[in-house]
């Protein structure tokens, strides 16, 4: 596949080192449907009008339509129906929390209970499409002259860039890392989506003619000014930043890892080291992913600490259930107060914890129970208490307004306070899911295309 940047000729898959033990221990949690099972499942769908499943999908995939096509043996048509709404349909089929999205809205909950397995059917169609060579038809034969830059190669930018290319616009994506995909490649649990499958999907987008620059972090006035000069429109899809710190003593020890590092380490960094006993701090989906990964990598005991109760936990219910089943130990109303080093001073000996007084009022004030201090011996601590926004970068974007560290946009178009800048994904929504980033990216692309096409008619540039 022809590459259009400095890394010409490089195969992304070759850059990715997946350790054999990862492939083995991170077997898929939702194996694909066989052809007969897919047909039977597709035939179960009622083909609802104005289907609630489609309404609940952030990218509004026409679910009954693609399912009907599976049952009619039109797998290519099915895949194109999916891709028309959601270019990362293959990833989404695997990573979407369908329980709270499409499948959660299926009328079968009120019929005979078991909803249609939309995610698995979507995967069935997408797998067939990729097996067939993943050839996408263009939406327009016109090549426009406008140029768009996307910052970050995560799902938001990828969806934006793909839609723009399909409509005949030139797009280049700037990514600070060596591999594209953002958290879809580096963050999502390997047993849901393998990094290689994320990259395979991006090859399809690259084949449309989207250009990529890797190892190219956009930072500082000069870089932004250059971008501003070279491109008509800029899409910001930078996601969120670093994991928040615990700010307790011992946090500087080398076996205190943040969850993103830890997950990217085993997925794309070739680092599968894990402690025999691991303490994970936090109770969001990321914490759960890290805990389950630690188990798979060989940890015998995985403790998860959360300062509040199970009802306030941010993780999805089904993620919590799965983690319990896999043997993760949950400590509610528990806060780490210090990390103790081993005698040599290098390794970790234990985490010092205290019980937090139960507080259902929702206020964030934390009160420790007297005399509740205890230690959990462990060799590794993984922090997962949320990502902070990329404030430094976002603040340097001229004319772009922020609120609570999130880029402010017009929802339907993704347009920021600066008409030349559009944004979408985690940096706008505060950190939702891949499918939300795709929806944002596509909506922005449609708006950008219409701006560029109008500007083209007038023969002028987009004014910022």
């Amino acid at each position, binding site marked *: 596949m022809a590459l259009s940047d400095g890394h010409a000729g490089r195969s992304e898959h070759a850059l990715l080192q997946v350790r054999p033990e990862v492939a083995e221990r991170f077997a898929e949690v939702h194996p694909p449907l066989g052809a007969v099972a897919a*047909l039977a499942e*597709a035939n179960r769908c009622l083909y609802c009008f104005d289907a609630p499943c489609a309404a609940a999908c952030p990218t509004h995939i026409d679910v009954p339509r693609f399912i009907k096509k599976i049952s009619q043996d039109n797998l290519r048509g099915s895949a194109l129906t999916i891709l028309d709404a959601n270019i990362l349909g293959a990833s989404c089929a695997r990573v979407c929390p369908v329980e709270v999205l499409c499948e959660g809205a299926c*009328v079968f909950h*009120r019929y005979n209970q078991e909803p249609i397995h939309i995610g698995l059917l979507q995967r069935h169609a997408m797998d067939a499409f990729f097996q067939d060579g993943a050839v996408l038809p263009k939406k327009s034969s016109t090549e426009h002259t406008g140029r768009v830059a996307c910052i970050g190669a995560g799902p938001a930018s990828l969806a934006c860039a793909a839609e723009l290319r399909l409509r005949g616009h030139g797009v280049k994506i700037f990514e600070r890392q060596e591999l594209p995909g953002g958290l879809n490649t580096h963050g999502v649990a390997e047993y849901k989506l393998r990094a290689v499958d994320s990259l395979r999907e991006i090859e399809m987008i690259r084949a449309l003619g989207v250009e990529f620059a890797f190892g190219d972090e956009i930072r500082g006035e000069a870089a932004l000014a250059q971008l501003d000069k070279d491109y008509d429109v800029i899409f910001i899809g930078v996601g969120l930043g670093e994991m928040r710190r615990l700010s307790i003593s011992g946090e500087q020890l080398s076996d205190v890892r943040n969850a993103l590092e830890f997950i990217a380490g085993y997925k794309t960094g070739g680092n599968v080291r894990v402690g025999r006993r691991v303490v994970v701090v936090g109770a969001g989906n990321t914490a759960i992913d890290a805990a389950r990964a630690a188990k798979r990598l060989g940890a015998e005991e995985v403790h998860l600490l959360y300062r509040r109760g199970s009802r306030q936990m941010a993780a999805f219910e089904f993620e919590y259930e799965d983690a319990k089943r896999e043997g993760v130990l949950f400590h509610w109303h528990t806060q780490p107060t210090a990390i103790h080093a081993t005698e040599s001073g290098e390794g970790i000996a234990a985490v010092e914890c205290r019980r937090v007084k139960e507080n259902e009022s929702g206020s964030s004030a934390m009160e420790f129970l007297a005399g509740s201090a205890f230690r959990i011996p462990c060799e590794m601590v993984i922090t997962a208490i949320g990502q902070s926004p990329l404030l430094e970068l976002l603040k340097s974007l001229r004319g772009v307004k922020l609120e609570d560290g999130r880029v402010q946009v017009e929802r339907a178009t993704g347009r920021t306070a600066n008409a030349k800048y559009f944004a979408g994904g985690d940096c706008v929504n505060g950190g939702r899911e891949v499918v939300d980033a795709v929806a944002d990216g596509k909506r922005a692309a449609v708006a950008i295309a219409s701006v560029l096409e109008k500007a083209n008619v007038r023969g002028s540039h987009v004014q910022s």
Partner: protein
Amino acid sequence: MSKAKVAPDLSVMFAGKIYSPNPFWLASAPPTNCGEQVMRAFDAGWGGAVWKTLGEPITNVSSRYSSVDWNGQRMMGLNNIELITDRPLDVNLREISEVKKRYPRHAVIVSLMVESKREAWHTIVQQAEDAGADGLELNFGCPHGMSERGMGSAVGQVPEYAEMITAWVKEKARTPVLVKLTPNITDIRTVARAAKRGGADGLSAINTINSITGIDLQTLVPRPNVDGKSSHGGYCGPAVKPIALNMVQQVQSDAESCLPLSGIGGISDWRDAAEFFLLGCGTVQVCTAAMRYGYRIVEDMTDGLANWMAEKGFANIAAFQGLSLANVKEWKNLNLNYKVVARIHEEKCIGCELCYTACWDGAHQCIHLDRVSESGNGHTTPATYEARSRAAIAVTPIPKLDGGMSERVGAEPYATPLARIPRVDESECVGCNLCMLVCPVENCITMERIDIGLPPQSWEQRSALGIPVKVQH
């Protein structure tokens, strides 16, 4: 209805002389190919069997069957290009006598088809009866292969031939003679009348329907594929039941055709069978269902029928045989002043909106989605709703970001959001039944009678009175 005190009696005496412990017979087809099969079938509970058609031995092709699958269900209809028995006549005759010897109380009917010569028919009738047949069935129905040789439906489609051959057989036969009718004819009564004139003691209907079930879209060869070619075959199975019922009704409502009738065509369970009895049949015959699931299906046929008869208070088959015939009228005699409208039972609705789209595109645009939003003017089209949903912004619910757990807010009276429960405009509803038919939930849409304050009046009555009438199609 009063419950019967004793278990209903399923035994029948068909065409005056053929006793059968129950009215379920296997039709002349592969399930009755040989003695070993027929004996196993009797052990399983079948009351009778019509032996696979005897005649001059033939050679069959391979492959022979194809089917119509529908919505993931296999074999809604079955098609075959098989001929009559391919076993030597003497072997069949020997096995018939063996079966009769071992199962004297079961009905063994022997199906016959030979060339249209009086001698040939006399000979085969003699042979079948000597072997112990309780009755004879003349196969005037096979629509493929045999008809090209002047037999089967080639006879069944020409009333004169059918009458002549029936008369030849009657010259010789001592047991009841049934004529098996082909449906591949404009008016099935013409041949039924001919058979009656020829002296037939009973009829069997229907045989298979001419069909091409489908074409392989890779090879472009219709199915079943015989070395790259195919031929039209005979269609049977659940798909043909409505056609068979209609023909049975036609024959049974016509005095010149009416004879004891063995109903055939798509019978798969006791309810199908009950319907054939209600239209006047005395026994029923089954082929496809037995080919698909085996002889064991007869257990529920007898059990289910007996339970229903007990519930209805029918002591035997004769007690309800033909009861529905009086309820089949010509269209011109139906009451034009009877009106029903659709009613949606909100508490059962699951919100699929299939009734809505069916009424808008396939009926009279009188179901609306305006319980919450619209003024009820009925002008919002389906496309408007779809566009609205597509334009709406949906996000993954994340409690942390959305401010607490998203508990359901507002008082929704039903399990399905009110906005998704369709509403019927009863003043516009013509009572066509379509919405009820498409609704996946049982009894969620019912058709309710509306009193329009007029006495019953049929088209015939109305036009006799000279009242200006809207032309109905």
